[in-house]
């Protein structure tokens, strides 16, 4: 289906939208903390609802989107499970922001262009394109339903006017081309204006079709489908720095693909044991090095990270480096392994560090030091005494992602109660912010939040027992060069910007 770009029909126009905007800083500024005035503080740019109505329409229909009732979208209670955002990703320039949801849709937002008339609009993101990437499938051989939920989206670097992205569900990766069309040919000889064939006998003159401007249309077309290569659930995809290959990782295997070839892939990691009863560990995430096209890392459910070099051998079962921190004996519990399971691994933009997220912490590792991380940040250590309850309600299995900012100086990850956390690696300061409608007042700077762990609760603090564990921020993204972040909370996408005084 096609949508008009820059169309704000899907924007939430409620009074909760904020201003004033500020011009983004050229280089990311340090964070402000509740105790200091700092140079940066965060304001809500916009809150975007994934368009519910779009899921009812097929891709082929050319619909008049103006007929869609906006008020339907504004009411939070109508959000369906299909609208739950499952992945968020900026493209390499930050101009586009893609989200995938449980219903298999991809929604791409585009940054508002700066204009002299509406300076305050800069930094807003509007719907650019929406398409159904994956459909639910049924595997008849195994009698299994394959979810259409988009697990990951990764952009390819832009090489021409069109945009390309990879999107994946549990089993199939697809390459999508998103392109604009603002001209169309008119004046065919054999077809009339509606596309119907003309009777050649009625043609008396010939004319040359000309390109005439038309309303801008954004089209998404599937260019490649990479299927049938994964027995287990795909958890990661990563584009290689050679821009010719990418990898897809499931629980037990990692495959290397060439973008041009869909009917075969190379298996580069296989940790499936000969006897499945010996299975004790699965792959949880994988990523290519940002500069070295032969190097990648993958993390495991046992809290280990392996760095592999594809030049060493065709099958990278033997790692080049093995990163693992010894268990802290004082923190041992029955749940030690579960909370050590790594849910996300990300190279820094520099390629010198990797960041890992486990249940309670974010760790930064130097590639040259395998025996322990160089930095450990506590995300929500107050949950350590609640692990049994979190095991009971399965929250302990939640998979949080983590992201670097453009300069690798700040890292961000989500938590519960719609909280998300940022850690400044240089100043060692951290801040907890909340992504929610109720707490985002117009024209106000986001207020840092604090969780009270015990003793006397101050007025603005929230106690651990009051946290809402159903409101989890699993997916966040950071603009590649500016202090703009996207935070997904259920079916809401919040975009925050750093405000510089």
């Amino acid at each position, binding site marked *: 289906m096609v949508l008009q770009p820059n169309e704000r029909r899907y924007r939430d126009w409620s009074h909760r939208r904020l201003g004033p905007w500020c011009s983004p800083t050229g280089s990311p500024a340090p964070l402000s903390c509740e105790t200091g005035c700092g140079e940066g503080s965060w304001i809500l740019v916009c809150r975007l609802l994934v368009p519910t109505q779009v899921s009812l329409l097929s891709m082929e229909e050319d619909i008049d989107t103006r007929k869609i009732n906006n008020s339907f979208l504004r009411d939070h209670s109508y959000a369906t499970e299909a609208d739950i955002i499952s992945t968020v990703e900026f493209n390499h320039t930050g101009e586009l922001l893609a989200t995938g949801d449980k219903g298999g849709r991809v929604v791409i937002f585009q940054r508002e262009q700066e204009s002299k008339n509406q300076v305050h609009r800069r930094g807003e993101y509007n719907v650019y394109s929406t398409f159904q990437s994956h459909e639910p499938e049924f595997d008849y051989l*195994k009698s299994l339903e394959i979810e259409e939920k988009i697990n990951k989206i990764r952009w390819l670097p832009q090489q021409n006017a069109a945009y390309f992205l990879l999107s994946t569900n549990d089993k199939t990766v697809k390459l999508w081309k998103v392109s604009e069309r603002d001209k169309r040919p008119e004046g065919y000889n054999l077809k009339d204006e509606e596309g119907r064939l003309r009777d050649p006998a009625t043609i008396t003159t010939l004319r040359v079709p000309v390109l005439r401007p038309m309303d801008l249309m954004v089209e998404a077309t599937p260019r490649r489908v990479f299927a049938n290569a994964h027995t287990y659930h795909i958890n990661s995809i990563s584009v290689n720095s050679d821009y010719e290959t990418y990898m897809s990782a499931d629980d037990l295997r990692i495959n290397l693909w060439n973008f041009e070839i869909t009917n075969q892939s190379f298996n580069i990691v296989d940790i499936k044991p000969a006897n499945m*009863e010996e299975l004790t560990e699965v792959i949880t995430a994988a990523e290519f090095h940002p500069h070295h096209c032969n190097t990648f890392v993958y993390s495991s459910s046992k809290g280990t990270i392996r760095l592999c070099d594809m030049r060493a051998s065709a099958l990278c079962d033997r790692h080049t480096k093995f990163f693992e921190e010894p268990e802290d004996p004082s923190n041992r519990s029955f749940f030690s392994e579960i909370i050590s399971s790594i849910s996300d691994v990300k190279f820094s933009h520099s390629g010198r560090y990797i960041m890992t997220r486990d249940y309670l912490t974010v760790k930064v590792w130097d590639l040259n030091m395998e025996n322990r991380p160089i930095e450990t940040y506590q995300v929500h250590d107050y949950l350590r005494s609640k692990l049994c309850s979190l095991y009971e309600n399965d929250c302990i299995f939640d998979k949080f992602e983590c992201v670097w900012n453009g300069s690798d100086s700040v890292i961000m990850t989500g938590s519960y109660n719609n909280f998300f956390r940022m850690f400044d690696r240089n100043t060692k300061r951290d801040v907890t912010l909340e992504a929610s409608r109720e707490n985002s007042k117009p024209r106000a700077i986001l207020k840092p939040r604090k969780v009270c762990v015990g003793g006397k609760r101050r007025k603005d603090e929230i106690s651990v027992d009051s946290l809402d564990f159903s409101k989890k921020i699993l997916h966040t993204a950071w603009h590649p060069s500016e202090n703009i972040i996207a935070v997904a909370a259920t079916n809401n996408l919040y975009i925050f910007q750093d405000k510089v005084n």
Partner: protein
Amino acid sequence: MMLSKGLKRKREEEEEEKEALAVDAWWLDPSHPAVAQAPPAVASSSLFDLSVLKLHHSLRQSEPDLRHLVLVVNTLRRIQASMVPTASLPPVPSVPAAPGMADNLLASSDAALSASMASLLEDLSHIEGLSQAPQPLADEGPPGRPTGGAPPGLGALDLLGPATGCLLDDGLEGLFEDIDTSMYDSELWAPASEGLKPGPEDGPVKEQAPELDEAELDYLMDVLVGTQALERPPGPGR
């Protein structure tokens, strides 16, 4: 509770053996900071039951989340290991040198694990026979053979090969008929078979030959990781 039948836990003996055990059984050390904060050892039984419930629930999915499954199984092993009375091990003088200790603990814990897993398997077969749709595990249905029906397709986890596929197609009863004894000879079980098997205190386990425990464990794991589609009609999915 049906899921833990076959496993007797003698609390008094457990406390006596804390000092006798030289291996790092930190969960039994009352002075250990983690244990001091953790729920007392007796609460582990509810944790064990919870873990078993989770395991069942995970297996009941049309396509289990492998990560969730592996983490629950590993946690279950830890819990089970902590619940094994250390009286099952001989007194300290007989305990071999340090490198072997871990194996012994593992062996004894695995043996006890297999004991409870054996009962688990039995109950699983009862439940498999009952349900046509995913049901909560709480009720124990009438014992009986799993109902026939079309042989299910191999689950996503089951890439054990055509031979095992045929085995599964015979149904759960077929697994017990055809016990593969090759595992007794493997080195993995050697330390255990040298006399460190659980003693008579383990209750009903003593009725069975030690070899059966390991074979059952093997096939139990086959069942656990490969049989979620066994006799189970396609469900509505996750």
